[in-house]
């Protein structure tokens, strides 16, 4: 029997109430890139780490979204609970490490008691003793361990003290556990009796009374008042002992301002404004840098490999494709840096509380707040963040409207279109209009949420009890390591999820716009080499597969004032919006490398005419029409796939696709023709 034990990889699952220091502990144990969640329920995905390398324990460590009890209340909690009883990949955990905050011991022991009652092997990691110590109390580790009949280790999240001790305890427990039979947990009664729950709390209060002891503070700052208090503490006065469950007074003072009816709103809008402006103005120079680097690499590749189909493939297909993926990374990182800071300080929960009432009027929930903000970066993480919304109808509605929020993929499109509308010295107007577009996208999502909500019974088919129960954690300074880890892992998640799609599509578009006639016959006489190259490029495109496809849909494009070339770009952008700009660049064969890509694209767009009529293709009205189109259209295959996965059926994504696409087309039609009727070019 014993040899098998050494080969077997044990499974340790980390469980804890929201804000119990669980993910901080996971960071210490794994050193990997996962975020701690100060906003309850922010860990929406599993993180797994091997303990072998760092601590020489042959075990997988699984992090999970925070739970309050074994009765799940929302999809993310359901994930955790069902994974405890039977994880699809790893099975039942051999050992559960559960975190509990000493300063709210009774609340967090609730989950611990439930886990022990289900006969799981449990080790308790007790966090934030320092906070309790400041109030003049401490938890007796020995007594608590005796009461619960499991090992208890005190962990200091600020410096990692106690983690080594925890590892030794885990090791000791695993050795004993692996000799025994596999754990078969008792099922937890799904709708357990309310009186049973209250009884559990009564038992916990007895434990708490036994294990919380007065602790003299470090003598240095002992003033008379505190000395008096401690004299009282020495007497077993139950009233005094209640002090250990006093709420952080500093947090209450800060909340007086941040949740104030006027100042709270001012701060809220200020924070949102700073968040969005940083997404544009902070990210822009870095995005330009990234795009210049890839532009340079593409040019160099063409020089080295020569102007043949292979060189063209590497340069225009591959390098430009990778560039179009990488260019969004700075923006996504900045958004998640700010979100991480807001989350880790504790503000996000306040934001959710402030906005709960207005959002509930249109059928959403305060907990829709974080998914909606994330939607400005990318709909994919945003839809996954909606798992924290307990009510299914509100969750589906949140997922439904997320594609309307202007994600970062639309930024380069709007930037290009606005650069066309407001060239050169008028560029600052473009900046203002850009801000307006974002506000408009919020407005659209709110209006459409309200409309959908009206017909929710038919569209969402869910009407259950709406609820908003959220812990407002104590404010604290953000942990830089946690926030940066969060930022890096978001960028990684984006690259993993969206990267391959965009790359493959860019290559596909390169192929469709370059073949079947890669070397078209061109009249080479009387032209400079540059002119010949341009002529060859446009001939190649005019006879390409893409042109065939574009001409097929031209009848649809005409009513909205556009031709087959825009049609091809829109088809290409259907898979991912950001492809629109790169495919326009390919279609108009922007080869002028002396200026920035955007400047030469604007130039090419200005020169473009419809067929041989000499009529301009891009006019202010068609450009505004395109902006309107991208505000509404659900041009992203990855979003469709994630919507399918998160809602559990094809109904919602198909509805979104039909609804948003037709809405986009109709609004573009009205915009273009309306503006023309009003006399705009």
């Amino acid at each position, binding site marked *: 029997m014993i040899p098998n034990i050494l080969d077997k990889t044990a499974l340790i699952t980390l469980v804890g109430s929201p*804000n119990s220091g669980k993910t901080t502990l996971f960071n210490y144990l794994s050193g990997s890139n996962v975020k701690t969640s100060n906003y309850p329920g922010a860990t929406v995905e599993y993180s797994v780490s091997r303990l072998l390398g760092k601590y020489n324990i042959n075990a997988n460590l699984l992090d999970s979204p925070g739970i*309050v*009890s074994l*009765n799940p*209340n929302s999809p993310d909690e359901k994930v955790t609970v069902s994974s405890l009883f039977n994880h699809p990949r790893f099975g039942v955990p051999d050992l559960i490490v559960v975190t509990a*905050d000493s*300063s*709210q*011991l*009774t*609340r967090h022991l*609730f989950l611990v008691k439930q886990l022990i009652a289900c006969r799981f092997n449990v080790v308790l990691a007790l966090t934030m003793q320092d906070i309790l110590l400041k109030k003049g109390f401490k938890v007796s580790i020995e007594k608590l361990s005796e009461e619960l009949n499991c090992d208890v280790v005190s962990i200091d999240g600020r410096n990692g003290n106690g983690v080594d001790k925890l590892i030794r305890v885990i090791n000791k427990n695993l050795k004993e556990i692996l000799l025994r039979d596999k754990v078969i947990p008792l099922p937890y009664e799904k*709708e357990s009796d*309310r009186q049973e*729950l*209250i009884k559990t*709390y*009564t038992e916990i209060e007895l434990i708490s009374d036994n294990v919380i002891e007065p602790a003299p503070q470090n003598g240095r700052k002992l003033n008379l008042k505190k000395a008096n208090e401690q004299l009282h503490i020495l007497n077993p006065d139950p009233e005094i002992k*209640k002090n*250990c*469950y*006093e*709420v952080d007074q500093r*947090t*209450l003072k800060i*909340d*007086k301002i941040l*949740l104030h*009816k006027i100042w*709270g*709103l001012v701060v809220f809008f200020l924070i949102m404004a700073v968040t969005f402006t940083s997404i544009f103005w902070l990210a822009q120079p870095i995005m330009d840098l990234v795009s210049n680097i890839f532009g340079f690499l593409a040019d160099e590749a063409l020089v080295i490999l020569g102007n043949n189909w292979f060189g063209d493939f590497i340069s225009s297909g591959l390098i430009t494709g990778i560039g179009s993926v990488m260019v969004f990374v700075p923006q996504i990182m900045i958004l998640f840096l700010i979100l991480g800071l807001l989350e880790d300080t504790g503000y996000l*929960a306040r934001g959710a*509380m*402030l906005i*709960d*009432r*207005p959002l*509930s009027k249109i059928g959403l929930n*305060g907990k829709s707040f974080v998914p909606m903000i994330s939607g400005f970066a990318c709909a994919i993480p945003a839809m996954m963040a909606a798992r924290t919304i307990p009510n299914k109808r509100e969750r589906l509605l949140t997922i439904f409207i997320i594609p309307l929020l202007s994600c970062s993929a639309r930024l380069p499109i709007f930037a290009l279109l606005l650069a066309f509308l407001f060239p050169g010295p008028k560029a600052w107007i473009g900046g203002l209009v850009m801000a307006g577009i974002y506000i408009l996208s919020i407005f659209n999502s709110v209006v459409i949420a309200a409309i959908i909500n009206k017909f929710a019974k038919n569209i969402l088919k869910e009407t259950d*009890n709406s*609820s*908003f*129960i*959220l*812990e*407002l*954690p*104590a404010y604290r300074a953000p942990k830089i390591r946690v926030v940066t880890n969060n930022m890096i892992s978001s960028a990684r998640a984006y690259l993993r999820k969206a990267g391959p799609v965009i790359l493959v599509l860019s290559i596909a578009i390169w192929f469709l716009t370059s073949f079947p006639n890669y070397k078209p016959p061109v009249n080479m006489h009387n032209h400079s080499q540059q002119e010949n190259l341009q002529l060859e490029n446009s001939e190649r495109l005019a006879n390409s597969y893409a042109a065939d496809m574009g001409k097929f849909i031209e009848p649809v494009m005409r009513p909205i004032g556009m031709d087959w070339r825009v049609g091809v770009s829109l088809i290409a952008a259907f898979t991912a919006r950001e492809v629109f700009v790169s495919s326009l660049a390919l279609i108009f064969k922007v080869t002028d490398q002396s200026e920035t890509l955007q400047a030469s694209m604007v130039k090419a767009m200005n020169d473009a005419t419809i067929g041989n009529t000499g009529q301009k293709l891009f006019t202010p009205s068609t450009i505004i029409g395109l902006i309107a189109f991208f505000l509404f259209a659900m041009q992203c295959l990855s979003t469709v796939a994630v919507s399918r996965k998160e809602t559990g059926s094809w109904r919602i994504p198909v509805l979104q696709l039909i609804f948003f696409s037709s809405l986009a087309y109709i609004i573009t039609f009205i915009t273009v023709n309306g503006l023309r009727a009003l006399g705009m070019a």
Partner: protein
Amino acid sequence: MKTASQLEYGERVIIDSIDEKHPSSRRIIEIGFTPGQEIQLVNKSIFNDPLAFSVRGTVIAIRKNEAECIKVS
């Protein structure tokens, strides 16, 4: 009987019972609102909803209609 939704700003009370018929009652109990516990209304959001109560060492925000299932004495 008075419910937690009727508390004045800063008012401290002891929970008497939880209305088990309310759909949120299970979660309200699980999160720490149990008979005998002292709670305090520490904050109100705009439009006076949701309400924030201090309970068992932390602050929990719940909607006004959910606070109605917490009977206080």
